[in-house]
């Protein structure tokens, strides 16, 4: 499984450490909320709403330079719109990996 990294954030910051720290904090605040929303929507079989959260999460994968996870989310977002949840287990593994990574920052 690919490892998340801060390459994009560091490039964007251009040495601005304050921005870097603030941005990581925003990510730490926002991502767990979205993960919880996703889980709740899946639990309640609200798949259209789940797809909207996957859409947001795939942006986070991009920010963390996770190209494979992004591609997976693109496909999964479409499947959810069609009522298919088979990719859920693998997707949750990716989410757990990202959440774990955030705790190291």
């Amino acid at each position, binding site marked *: 499984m690919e490892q998340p990294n801060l390459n994009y954030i560091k490039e*964007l910051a251009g040495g601005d450490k304050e921005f870097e720290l603030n941005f990581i904090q925003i990510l730490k605040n*926002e991502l767990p909320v979205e993960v919880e929303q996703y889980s709740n929507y899946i639990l309640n079989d609200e798949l259209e709403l789940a797809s909207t959260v996957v859409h947001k999460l795939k942006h986070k994968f991009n920010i963390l330079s996770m190209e494979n996870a992004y591609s997976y989310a693109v496909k999964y977002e479409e499947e959810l719109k069609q009522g298919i949840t088979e990719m859920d287990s693998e997707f949750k593994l990716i989410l757990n990996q990202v959440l774990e990574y955030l705790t190291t920052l």
Partner: protein
Amino acid sequence: MNCIIVDDEATARAIVEKLCNQFSELDLIDQFDNAIDAIKFLNQHQIDVIFLDIHMPGFSGIDFVQTLKNPPKIVLTTSDTDFAIAAYEYEAIVDYLVKPISADRFEKSIQKIKNTSIHIPVESNLNPRSDATNGDLYINIDRRLIKLKLHEILIIEAQGDYIVIKTTKTNYRVHTTLKKIKEKLPNKTFLQIHRSYIINFTKIIDIEDNSVLIEKSVIPISRSNRPELMRRLNLL
């Protein structure tokens, strides 16, 4: 150039804010996590550029663009490219940025903004005629009398020497005054709630503070017109 950011994701707003701050020609005035608040802001402020997310819950970026009466230049931001073709159908949209946005790509977008001018066409002129008894209103556009169904009219807005009649199907720009058209409209259905706006009272979705929502448009209520509006409401 004054600009605002409209995006429901805090991370996305932070990225665009950082990029805006790198260009002295951009003055970031405000940012919004939803389209409705942004529309209210735009009703009161002159803005040159909007960085706008397409995917927002309830009210998409494209809905937002359609709602704006005199849109500033708009740069769409999104995580996928599916909307690119649809986006360029709107003259106000000058660029389309795929997230995560790089500084190089953002710089190219700034150049596009500088090099693009928006032309908003004048669609018609002359005077409205009405036959309110039949529920119709005739407007003269390019020497053709066009019949509007009164129940299809949502909002009428004064714009200088013109009015814009927004209906459920399309908008018409007519060379007349709000005062003149008001005389042609039935009082029980239409109400002036601001010096620049007459609304179809039956089309109100909700009322919040000093504005009403009709379809996807947020219309301000002036203090002097508010009592009449409240009087007409069938309040519980």
